């Protein structure tokens, strides 16, 4: 059955049992990919012609930025799955995705700010993309806070999923902001089609750190969603048996 996996994944017990053994592998590959990308990017990639070595911040800035945007979609889609198919697992994934998404957005702003000092001369500049990233961070924080506001779980899930879905308009705006407004940020250097504006010797280690960020993102989403499963399913027999074992 083509849709069977979808409904199985929607079962909290199935999700909990299935994803448990994945976590060590996901975690180890995230660390390994990050280590390769960082050593390569920091030590072996050539210095940039104009920026010198400060451009190496890219190897942490770009992955955090990519995941903060890509991860927002994961969170919103998980919320939509919960709303449309009434799959509770969707809300649990949405909730766990908000936390790591907020951290990644904060890291994008923090590393960008550190990079801005030697490159643009100030830690903070009023640039369209930076401003929208700040709004994205506030949106993530708003979502996390909204979840704690409601006493009723269903109302919280519903409202947060709606807010997350409304917020998706921000993601393409951030992505296109460098083209729409005059900006200190450069336009996209890496293109899926056509020639990238970044040399392969610099891009290859970046691929490793970006992949590691997505893998680490998956680890945090799954780990925290499993915690949420335990909490929400605490009245079921299987959680009771599981916790009785120790």
């Amino acid at each position, binding site marked *: 059955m083509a849709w069977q996996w979808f409904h199985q994944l929607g079962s909290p017990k199935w999700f909990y049992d299935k994803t448990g053994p994945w976590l060590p592998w996901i975690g180890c590959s995230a660390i390994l990919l990050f280590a390769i990308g*960082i050593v390569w990017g*920091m*030590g*072996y*990639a*050539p*210095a940039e012609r104009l920026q*010198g*070595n*400060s451009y*190496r*911040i890219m190897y*942490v*800035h770009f992955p*955090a930025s990519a995941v903060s945007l890509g991860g927002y979609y994961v969170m919103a889609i998980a919320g939509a799955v919960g709303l449309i198919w009434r799959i509770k697992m969707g809300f649990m994934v949405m909730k766990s995705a908000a*936390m*790591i998404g907020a*951290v990644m957005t*904060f*890291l994008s702003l*923090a*590393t960008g700010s*550190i*990079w801005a*000092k*030697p490159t643009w001369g100030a830690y903070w500049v009023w640039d369209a993309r930076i401003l929208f990233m700040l709004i994205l961070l506030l949106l993530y924080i708003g979502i996390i806070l909204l979840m704690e506001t409601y006493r009723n779980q269903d109302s919280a899930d519903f409202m947060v999923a709606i807010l997350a879905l409304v917020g998706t308009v921000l993601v393409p705006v951030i992505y296109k902001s460098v083209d729409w407004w005059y900006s200190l940020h450069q336009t996209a250097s890496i293109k899926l089609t056509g020639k990238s504006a970044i040399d392969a*010797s610099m891009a290859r280690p970046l691929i490793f750190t970006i992949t590691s960020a997505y893998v*680490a993102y998956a680890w*945090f989403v799954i*780990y*925290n969603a*499993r*915690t949420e499963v*335990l*909490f929400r399913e*605490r009245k079921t027999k299987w*959680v*009771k048996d599981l*916790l009785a074992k120790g």
Partner: protein
Amino acid sequence: MHFRFSSFSDFMTMSGHGIYVWSAFFVVVASIAGLLIFSVAKRKKIKHDIREYYRRVELASQNGGDE
């Protein structure tokens, strides 16, 4: 492909940019490690709270109450 710095201290200072590059790196590693510790602690707390909850329910049922 070769190592781009002449020594370890050169790798750390990166001709003046090292402070920015390594502090950005440190912020990322520290934040992710912090979230990791937070997540593991939260799992522990939730497990503890659920066991507390089971104990309370059991006590209540022993006392004849319906929780």
